[in-house]
């Protein structure tokens, strides 16, 4: 961006953007920021929904350090994020490359790949729970009817995590695919023509043209996928309730349980603060890396 040409503090650099931002910021401030501030303030209290609110300083955070189940669910979450984010990014980019063309048939395929994203988490959860059921699941039924052994998809700790990762990728690939398709479409045709004249092959075109051009989209995808994976809760709760045992119990489920079942809103809030710090740090790094890559070019 060229700063010199634009005089500062003129209408179009101060008031105009503020006016453009105003409607969004107004809603945002009232409905998100205000509740967020009062929600996060609870982390300094012993806060019962129905009962008393006592200021307790940093006690909640001190208790977190030695809370075994908190660390357990944090560990589960990180392991899940570690697999989900790269797999999801790769699969959605790969599929977007397959279906970013203009032909009619491609649009049809896009629609099919996007379908799982359209299902609400309740449906995705209970349908997959049913499909992958040990006894009444269609997958195990098909496996055994062709002579294979049935697999405990959701009921053994290791397989349950793997199944959750797969189902997440299945359910969200379409979402990020649409973003990538949008990004790929924005690349001017002239660039491809030039590359083809130079005799570049598919992989060179990807590396030299598509990849650099979709980097802003890539940032969105990676940042959103990371945030969403850290916050995974509803779908997982429907699928496994965090089980078997606590094998797939993630942080937000712990937060939910502490907040509403144990009625310790303050403690739950302190867990949320830790979660935010972790995601915030990772997001910050992602932005920095993205910027640095720009600078290198």
């Amino acid at each position: 961006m060229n700063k010199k040409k634009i005089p500062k503090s003129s209408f179009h650099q101060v008031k105009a953007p503020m006016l453009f931002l105003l409607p969004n910021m107004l809603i945002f401030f009232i409905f998100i920021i205000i509740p967020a501030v009062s929600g996060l303030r609870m982390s300094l209290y012993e806060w019962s929904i129905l009962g008393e609110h006592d200021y307790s300083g940093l006690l909640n955070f001190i208790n977190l350090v030695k809370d075994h189940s908190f660390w357990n669910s944090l560990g589960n979450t990180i392991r899940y994020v570690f697999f989900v984010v790269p797999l999801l990014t790769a699969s959605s980019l790969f599929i977007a490359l397959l279906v970013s063309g203009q032909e009619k048939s491609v649009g049809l395929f896009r629609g099919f790949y996007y379908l799982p994203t359209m299902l609400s988490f309740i449906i995705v959860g209970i349908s997959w729970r049913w499909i992958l059921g040990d006894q009444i699941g269609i997958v195990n039924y098909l496996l055994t009817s062709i002579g294979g052994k049935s697999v405990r998809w959701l009921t053994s700790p290791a397989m349950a995590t793997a199944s959750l990762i797969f189902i997440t990728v299945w359910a969200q690939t379409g979402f990020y695919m649409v973003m990538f398709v949008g990004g790929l479409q924005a690349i001017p045709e002239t660039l491809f023509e030039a590359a083809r004249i130079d005799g570049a092959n598919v992989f060179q075109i990807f590396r030299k043209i598509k990849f650099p051009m979709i980097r802003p989209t890539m940032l969105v995808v990676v940042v959103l996928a990371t945030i969403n994976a850290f916050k995974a809760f509803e779908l997982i709760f429907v699928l496994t309730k965090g089980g078997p045992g606590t094998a797939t119990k993630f942080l937000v489920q712990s937060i939910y349980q502490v907040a509403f079942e144990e009625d310790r809103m303050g403690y739950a809030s302190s867990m949320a603060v830790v979660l935010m710090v972790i995601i915030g740090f990772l997001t910050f790094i992602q932005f920095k890396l993205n910027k640095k890559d720009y600078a290198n070019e």
Partner: protein
Amino acid sequence: MNKTGGLILKIFLLIVFFFPILWIIFSSLKLQNELFTFPLTIFPNHPTLQNFRAAFKSGNFIRYFNNSAFVAVVSTIITITINIMAGYALSKYIFKGRDLIFSIMIATLMIPLQVILVPIFILEKNLGLLNSLWGIIIPPAATPTGIFLARQYMMTIPNSLIEAARIDGGGEWFIFHRIIIPLAKPIIATIAIFSFMWRWNDFLWPFIVIAKEKKYTLQLALANFVGQYDVDWSKLLSMTVISIIPLVFVFLLFQKYFIRGMTSGGVKY
């Protein structure tokens, strides 16, 4: 990659993505007692539309559908308008606090809503929005994700276009309206598809705000089919199938704006 190889790959992926949904569709054509009869069958033995008839009859299906449609359409229009404006402001202007505003927006994405349910509920109550559809239309319309998408997209629009327009004496609104919006069609289409889907499938906001049966959205009605120890599969599956149709329609409607080279007219890189 040659053409046939590509096609085979696409069809393989199609099976992976579509099979579970096909299973849902076929199952919605079975009666409840056939669902759990062994041996399992993929195709229904006695395909029937009875589940659909039952779904339409149960409660006020049409009303839930209308409520959902109203919420999704109105909220999407608001979202597109305010997100595109905000994304433009955050990508094409330089002003003090810009990065801070953007960071705060992204940061709020990181808050698990579970810990702020109580303050949100109290706020909605104080604003008199409980059991009002506006209470689930307005608050989630200012989605940070949409702004993030819009901002990232608009960063690829060359500044030279805007500056040229300014030199020609174009006002700020004129530039936004006549230059930016046409260039931003693909991202508008993307946000429209997403926003419609989010609001259509939203559970959390309706859960906080709506309890009156008259104001139920489809998702609340669907959740009522999942009992404590029991799932009403026949109604759930058929309603699910019906509830996807508008989403498919919106997707097909907007996806034709994923057109290559939107920004290429007059742009020199």
